[in-house]
């Protein structure tokens, strides 16, 4: 397998479409329609099926980038897109009323990715909305006995989104060191290793 899949998940308005647009090397494919739920979010359009983009990582490794719809009524798509994904980048919007509660919902939904250590959390709008801070996020995850990287990001910035992906790769590699003594355990892991070697 040489074109692994990454999934961007998170609440409505967290920046999934923006993150994919920031790094995609092809014009992103979107399924945006009018947002009729202005109580939930003031934005005019919302993704209802998926976003899609592509980015080259390392020498020749192409990553396929999928964005999920944020609203939980679309949870049937979350599991479809997460199937066989290399990992999940979970975006949290710190300007929302209860970001940690939002986080719980997605941690529950993407339990398989977490179990395999293939999840990274990016927290947006942290400069304007500093609470909960990173410590609160880590404590929250610790209470759930989870060790997941949490990174403040501005998903409009290409380098921030690439940092999330790099952190995910590192997370997968660290887990490999622990579980297999560094030997790749599957095609995905092999590919992550190859991609990272190519980018160094």
């Amino acid at each position: 397998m040489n074109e692994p899949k990454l999934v961007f998940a998170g609440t409505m308005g967290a920046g999934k479409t923006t993150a994919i647009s920031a790094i995609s090397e092809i014009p992103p494919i979107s399924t945006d329609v009018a947002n009729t739920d202005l109580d939930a979010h003031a934005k005019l359009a919302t993704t209802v099926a998926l976003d899609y983009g592509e980015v080259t990582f390392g020498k020749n490794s192409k990553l396929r980038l999928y964005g999920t719809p944020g609203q939980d009524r679309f949870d049937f798509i979350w599991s479809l897109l997460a199937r066989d994904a290399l990992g999940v980048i979970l975006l949290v919007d710190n300007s929302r009323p209860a970001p940690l509660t939002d986080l719980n919902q997605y941690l529950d939904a993407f339990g398989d990715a977490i179990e395999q250590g293939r999840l990274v959390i990016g927290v947006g709008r942290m400069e304007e909305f500093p609470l909960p801070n990173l410590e609160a996020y880590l404590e929250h995850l610790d209470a759930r006995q989870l060790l997941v990287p949490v990174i403040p990001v501005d998903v409009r910035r290409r380098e921030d989104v690439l940092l999330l992906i790099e952190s995910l790769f590192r997370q997968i590699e660290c887990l490999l060191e622990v579980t297999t003594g560094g030997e790749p355990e599957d095609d995905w892991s092999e590919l992550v290793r190859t991609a990272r070697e190519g980018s160094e």
Partner: protein
Amino acid sequence: MSDRMKLPEPIAAVVEESVRGVHRRVPGVTGCIAATVDGRLLEHVVDNTADPRRMAAMIGSMVALGETIGKEVRIGRSQFVVVHALDGILLMQRVPSRKELLVVATLARTTTNLGVVLHETRRAAGEIGEALDRWLQSSAA
């Protein structure tokens, strides 16, 4: 955040009658649903045990995907999307109106003529679209 939207009364009445009308007129039709383009349930009649709220979300996704795919493969704008399954048909389409905010879908037995399902779904969509346009026009005046 709500998965169900309350429509202005004049539109709600037409939506209800149109959805129920499709179900009433065609013997093989086992359900009809109206929803917003972003997957929120407006009105439904469904004979089986499927969850209409989940159906509304899926219909929103499928109609949007159909339109995206139509554009990507250079075949123009999707008119409707059909799931032809072993035990039934689901036909989904956008409601034509000045502001494209709604979708309609019809669920039918496989023995039902697809042309009839399409005709009835289009008719319902047209009625709802006209009501929506009338309301938008009167609100703007």
